[in-house]
């Protein structure tokens, strides 16, 4: 049995464009039954998303996409993403805010603000003013524009007005792109946050009471290392906009052969027309995440 899901997508709290409420409302409008917001490395949008979902009757799973690395510090270094899904029940009380990965997300927000302000400080006074440096400096880390919102502040005329010429926007965008990549990589100062191996990320997720699912497994260049990580994982993201049908079928067969959980999601960033997942997620995966038997009448697609 399958449940109509979208368990992987992003909001303006990372590199998406939608508010958590917009994200939830769109999925309600297309008949989803169970959804998650899985922003990169933080859960700042989870409470707002959960509240919006509660008012729509959908099951909302607290989640995030943890950035780990393969071959960290080597020339073949590449990011490896592991989705963490928490039982809905962690929304009760203050369990969510006490989770290790939630606290890690608070640190991520603080360091992101430091990185953006440091980059802006290197720009001309005119550029800093056009980008709203003073306003940004006063913002608390939790509300500071995340990656996509910062990019839009640079490239989108409607966000910052006519103060920047198109030429300056392009130059600033390239400069910022070079800098923001270092936030996650071994060239930056955040080894403690992002220097985990895939297996270390999975362990952290499990220790936090969540279920680990490898995101878009076809994306990684090191196929042997990916295969090893998939062997260790609790689940595999099978259907995603990054997988062609035949690729998804291959990973579904792998997951079923190895008796792993698997999921169906969009990895929507609101950068492209929404690609509805072609299949639901198995009910048993949802039950595993929630650690309980689900009411079928609510969830069956």
């Amino acid at each position: 049995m399958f449940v109509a899901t979208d368990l992987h997508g992003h909001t303006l709290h990372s590199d998406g464009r939608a508010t958590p409420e917009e994200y939830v409302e769109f999925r309600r409008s297309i008949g989803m039954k169970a959804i998650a917001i899985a922003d990169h490395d933080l859960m700042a949008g989870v409470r707002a998303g959960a509240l919006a979902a509660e008012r729509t009757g959908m099951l909302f799973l607290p989640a995030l996409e943890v950035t780990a690395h393969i071959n960290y510090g080597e020339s073949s270094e590449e990011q490896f993403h592991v989705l963490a899904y928490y039982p809905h029940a962690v929304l009760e009380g203050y369990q969510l805010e006490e989770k290790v990965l939630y606290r890690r997300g608070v640190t991520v927000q603080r360091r992101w603000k430091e990185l953006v302000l440091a980059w802006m400080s290197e720009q001309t006074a005119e550029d800093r003013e056009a980008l709203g440096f003073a306003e940004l400096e006063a913002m608390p880390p939790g509300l500071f524009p995340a990656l996509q919102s910062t990019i839009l502040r640079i490239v989108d005329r409607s966000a910052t007005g006519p103060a920047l010429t198109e030429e300056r926007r392009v130059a600033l965008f390239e400069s910022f792109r070079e800098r923001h990549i270092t936030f996650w990589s071994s060239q930056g100062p955040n080894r403690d946050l992002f220097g985990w191996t895939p297996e270390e990320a999975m362990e952290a997720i499990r220790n936090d009471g969540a279920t680990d699912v490898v995101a878009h497994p076809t994306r990684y260049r090191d196929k042997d290392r990916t295969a090893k990580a998939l062997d260790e994982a609790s689940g595999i993201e099978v259907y995603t906009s990054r997988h062609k049908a035949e690729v998804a079928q291959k990973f579904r067969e792998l997951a079923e052969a190895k008796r792993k959980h698997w999921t169906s999601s969009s990895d929507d960033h609101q950068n492209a027309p929404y690609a509805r997942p072609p299949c639901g997620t198995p009910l048993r995966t949802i039950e595993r995440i929630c650690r309980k038997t689900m009411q079928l009448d609510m969830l069956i697609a």
Partner: protein
Amino acid sequence: MIKVRILPRLLGAAVVLPTLAGCSQEAEDDVAAASDGELVEIKAGTGEITVRGYLAEYRSTSNGDEFIRVGEKLQVNLALSMAIDALAGGDAALASALRADPSKIEATPKITFVRADDTKSELVLAKIAWSGAAGTTASFTVPPGTKRLSIDFEGKTTAGAAPKTVMIFGYHQVRANFPVFGAFLPNKLALFDTLGADRRMRILEGGGVVPGAKISVDVTDWRLDTIVDKSTLDLRIGQQQSGNRFGPAIVDALGALEYEVDAAVSFDDGATWGSAKFEKAPGSDVLGGSAPPGRFVLASLLDVPREARGNMKIAFHVKAFLRVPEQGNILNPRYAPGARILLKDVWDKDGDKDYALRVANR
């Protein structure tokens, strides 16, 4: 028939509430009222406001809905993690010390009540007591005539190198403002919204529509989205240059979805009908205290005739338009700048019937 007199102080304020703008004292001083007290009494319950994860969230603890009413008994819960983040910031040692001994955090709650006439009163409660991952205030009752309340927490600690005082909510910029319903009786608000795909309607103050008073009819944006099935509407107006983490990108440019709402209204069980025009009310109270920017309701303030009887009946005529901006660097435009295209034209009714709201007995 009981004649209800409304406190002048409240009447003056009715004018400043957007959804009740235009109330006149003459109209309200002569309200034909029901005999069961439903016009002047609110059945207030109990509830709690919980502040955690960048959100202040109200929940009834007496089987109520998502709104606070005058007379309600409330408590506020504050996540310990928020106090620690605000006080320690990036100071890991201080954060550890505070987590190990939360008694080193003094968090003093202050409740500000905004009355119907915009005057304010403050209630400073005792320092909260920490227990586990949160602290809870003493309970307090929302005074009569309150139209809004807000909460602040001042946090202090002497655990660090130097004493520190911060506004805990200020650090997180949590919007801890909540509308309160029941300050403007016998004027009432009829809310038409959705719960999931289900359409809902209710009078937030309870009881029926009051003859001689005002009724504000509010329709939420999400309800309108449901009525026109927004997911089926093509809002693309072309493309635009943008960027994402991987580099420059061309993305779809979307126009704005605009609604026009009119309604056919009867106050005598459908014997005679009039029309009502709805206006956009961004930031309406019915969206709650933490509504995200961009959400709105369409509202219409109606005079309830003194002769109203039976049921107030209403049916909504909803038109959805795609608005193309006048300016913007749109690539491959599909429409002329400034164009307004009708996408959908539908009626919102209770199946084959009109929606019916009971008129209070005279």
